[in-house]
């Protein structure tokens, strides 16, 4: 290797070996099997965490998600965490511009993207500097030496041009500098591609190499490339070549003596696919609408990290889905309300600041008592906050954030697959109980992926809209009728035993009626400022929402004994970290249990009793204690908090330590 930064001076032995002539690169990568590496050792690992990091333009997200798919298809359990800057192309080579994709895969269940990584793949100096603290001591670093030239080192903030690849500062790790740029260009020699286009394929080299390192076949990634570039034969050929070159490099380069094997995980039998949280929400909405026999209308304004729901839905118009990119967040929710009034299923999604803008309309939806699903893909706040970072600090906003007494059911998904379940449940509750429903997810699960043993459509719970019955015998009175008695007016706010009003849709004969945001008279829906009527309507709306808790399944522990020393109460995307920590503590003999809430309002009726059966209660949250305060206020329980508001998910280690500390008090 002759790259400037890669030129070894007092480098490690690995670095010196890397200076050997480049390995031959085959130009025809169509073989469908991988040459076995007889001359290389294989170590078996139970689970592995890889962090890919580079400039936000380096294609790191693609590399990560492709290798995720390969492992998932192989039968590993997987969990991922994409982490990227808010800017599309943040300043190249700087810490601010570093994009990351963390992948945890294993032959055992994995519940989080992993606390610390085993392998760190970095495309430049900034990526190394930003992520080195996440690498286990003794972990492997694959460094693109081309990204460690003087300019990159300076941009990353390495002082006096100190090059970590050569100054022995990484001696505690296994360092493999590879001039990926040069090897990529070599693989593409003789093609018509320009230098820029060639360099854009670097991520394929990494992808190919990492396939070799973990003994995976290239089939899945090849298929992906062939589909993606099917209309661009030169790019198709180039990407396949580089992918193969990366694989062969691992196989032939003497630098790498060991590859790793992660066997399939013992997962429940069945058919699986991979799914992200935003995909889960989109599919859940479509499935809910289909099972309810309703047309899905999705009004939305682009916002990170919720926009992928809009993208996914707009690709599924053959389900009758109507997507409407509105002029603003307010129009997004108002069009959805209008669609629900028109007999469709109105849905909208956003993130915190956008939800704030929708707030007045949510109050309207509470008053109108129409179905509406609102998804908040939470991100770091307040205000614009940290759009690409995760947080769960909008719980109070969801439950309390409206003027007046405006109760609305609030659900929280706990993982990418749970996003499907809860989106489906949100549709069911909204339609069957004639109410807006808020579903909380967050950036962590929205972009993270995991295997999903998807259900059959026939097995999904039925959803029954409470449509009013049109009055076919109704006749419009004529002016000439004079004193003829008008037919009895339809009563839009007459309720059934669950407190639910009938859904009368324009076009339904004899059911014409007026609704609005002004307080309404009980049953008739006419404007009323009567004091006692207002109290009654406030009570009726509250009772209707409270009764939704009657539909929940009994509360169920995620793990642990049904009484004991400590109950950890979680909600949202902290699920994986809490589960990992709790299973570990239980194995070690601690009396700890884990319950994960998905109904944030109204809460499960069994929670009151459950909280009493443990001496201590711990509530880990990526906020300053919002659920903890709700539990204290509602159940008079001395819940303690573990709170982290850094835009980052919890590690299992953090949960474990907090639990142990509370147990020792």
């Amino acid at each position, binding site marked *: 290797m002759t790259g400037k930064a890669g030129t070894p001076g007092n480098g490690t032995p690995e670095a010196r070996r890397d200076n050997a002539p480049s390995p031959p690169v085959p130009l025809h990568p169509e073989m469908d099997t991988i040459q076995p590496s007889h001359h290389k050792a294989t170590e078996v690992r139970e689970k592995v965490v890889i962090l890919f990091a580079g400039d936000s333009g380096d294609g790191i997200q693609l590399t990560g998600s492709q290798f995720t798919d390969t492992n998932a*298809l192989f*039968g590993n359990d997987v969990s991922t965490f994409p982490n990227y800057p808010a800017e599309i192309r943040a300043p190249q080579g700087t810490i601010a511009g570093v994009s990351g994709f963390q992948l945890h895969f294993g032959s055992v269940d994995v519940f989080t993207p992993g606390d610390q990584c085993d392998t760190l793949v970095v495309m430049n100096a900034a990526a190394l500097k930003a992520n080195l603290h996440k690498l286990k001591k003794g972990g492997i670093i694959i460094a693109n030496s081309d990204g460690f030239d003087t300019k990159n080192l300076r941009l990353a903030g390495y002082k006096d041009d100190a090059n970590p690849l050569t100054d022995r500062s990484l001696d505690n790790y296994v360092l493999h500098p590879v001039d990926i740029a040069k090897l990529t260009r070599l693989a593409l020699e003789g093609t018509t591609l320009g230098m820029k286009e060639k360099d854009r394929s670097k991520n394929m080299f990494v992808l190919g190499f990492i396939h070799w390192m973990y003994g995976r076949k290239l089939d899945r990634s090849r298929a992906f490339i062939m589909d993606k570039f099917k209309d661009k034969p030169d790019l198709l050929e180039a990407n396949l070549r580089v992918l193969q070159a990366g694989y062969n490099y691992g196989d032939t380069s003497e630098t790498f003596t060991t590859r790793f094997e992660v066997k*399939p995980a013992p997962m429940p039998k069945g*058919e*699986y*696919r*991979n*799914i992200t949280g935003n995909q889960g929400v989109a*599919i859940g909405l*479509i*499935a809910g609408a*289909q*099972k309810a026999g309703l*047309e899905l209308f999705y009004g939305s304004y682009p916002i990170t990290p919720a926009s992928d729901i809009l993208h996914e839905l707009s690709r*599924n*118009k*053959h*389900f*009758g*889905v*109507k997507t409407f990119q*509105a*002029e*603003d967040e*307010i*129009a997004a929710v*108002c*069009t959805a*309300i*209008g*669609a629900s*009034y*028109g*007999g*469709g299923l109105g849905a909208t999604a956003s993130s915190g600041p956008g939800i704030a803008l929708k707030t*007045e309309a949510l109050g*309207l939806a509470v008053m*109108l008592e129409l179905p509406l699903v609102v998804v908040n893909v939470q991100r770091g706040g307040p205000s614009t906050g940290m759009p690409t970072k995760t947080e769960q600090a909008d719980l109070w906003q969801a439950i309390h954030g409206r003027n007046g007494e405006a109760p609305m059911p609030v659900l929280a998904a706990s993982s990418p697959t749970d996003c499907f379940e809860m989106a489906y449940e949100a549709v069911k509750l909204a339609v069957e109980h004639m109410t807006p429903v808020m579903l909380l997810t967050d950036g962590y699960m929205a972009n993270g992926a995991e295997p999903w043993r*998807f259900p*059959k*459509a026939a097995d999904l719970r039925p959803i029954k809209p409470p449509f009013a019955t*049109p009055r076919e015998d109704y006749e*419009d*009175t*004529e*002016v000439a009728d004079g004193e003829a008695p*008008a037919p009895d*007016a339809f009563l839009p706010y007459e309720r059934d035993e669950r407190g639910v009003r009938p859904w009368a849709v*324009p*076009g*339904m004969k*004899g059911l*014409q*009626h*007026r*609704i*609005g*945001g002004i307080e309404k008279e009980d049953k008739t829906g*006419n*404007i009323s400022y009567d004091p006692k009527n207002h109290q009654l309507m406030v009570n009726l709306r509250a009772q209707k929402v409270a009764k939704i808790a009657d539909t929940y399944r009994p509360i169920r522990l995620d793990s642990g004994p049904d009484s004991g020393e400590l109950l950890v109460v979680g909600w949202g995307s902290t699920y994986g970290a809490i589960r990992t920590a709790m299973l570990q503590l239980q194995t070690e003999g601690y009396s700890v249990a884990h319950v994960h809430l998905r109904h944030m309002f109204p809460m499960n009726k069994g929670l009151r009793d459950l909280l009493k059966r443990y001496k201590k209660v711990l509530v880990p949250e990526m906020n300053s204690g919002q659920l903890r305060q709700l539990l204290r206020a509602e159940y008079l329980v001395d819940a303690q908090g573990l709170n982290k508001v850094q835009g980052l998910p919890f590690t299992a280690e953090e949960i474990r330590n907090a639990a142990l500390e509370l147990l020792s008090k």
Partner: protein
Amino acid sequence: MSTLQPAKPAPKKIDYSSDQQVRWCPGCGDYSILKQVQSVLQEFGRPKEEIVFISGIGCSSRFPYYLDTYGMHGIHGRAPAIASGLRSVQPDVSLWVITGDGDSLSIGTNHLVHVLRRNVDLNILLFNNEIYGLTKGQYSPTSPEGAVTRSTPMGSTDHPFNPLALCKGADASFLARSMDRDPKHLREVLLRAEKHRGTSMVEIYQNCNVFNDGAFEIFTEKASKALHTVFVEHGKPLLFDNGRKGIKLDGFTPKVADLTTGGASVDDLWVHDEHDSFKASLLVRLFDDPHKEGALPRPFGVFYVNERPTHEAKMNAQVALAKQKRGMGDLDVLLRGKQTWTIN
């Protein structure tokens, strides 16, 4: 306009009034508009369940309660958005948005301009009274500069909107202006609006006799109307002052032509063509302060009609095309996704 026939002959005159007592102030211009809307509904004769009125907030927005049709009294400024969502799933109902100058030109302007550019099929009746009535007398975005109101005791410092010029800028496909005090004209304009497929924008000068009485007197009262208004009709010259004067175009500049002095004839006048987008842009700019010397008269009538596809028609066409290309969505296929694996 008088030769126009409604879409369907009315077999009977349906009574569209609801059982709710109308609660506008006595003498309010809204009464006249309500009456003409009822008359137009009767002309079309659609059954009550096929008609929807959506409103925002303000005096005018109480409108839906007074009609025995489907209706929603929404939130401030958002009626066009609510109606757009409704239209997306209800392609056939007769859909009306009732709004005022505060509702749609201040808090809801964003939705107004976007519904116009999308061309969602609905009728917007903008009751312009140049004042906030429901909140008791603050200046509105259409109040003239210098207007003394409760919030501007020294006179408004804001330059007002020219509503139809704004709407023309948003590529409205139907633009018209009428007034509460000319029920016959209002009725004809409303008939045209309901007939038009796309967003029909009708600005109605409406007198608030409590907080801004006489704001449009110069256009509505017999003594001054002839001299300060010009009623445009497709294919006819722009005549006013009982035919004694007209408007001619000097290049792109409209000028008054006196037909009584022999200096100009009817043949020199601007002939209204409601399909001419450029001339409509000039017409909406006839917006002089009528009290100023040499002011051009204020036009009324249907300014512009452009038959372009509606938003919902294009949206529905995409859904139909997707179904045709990919077949009706199969939920099991969606749940499976593109790639699966099986664990035995």
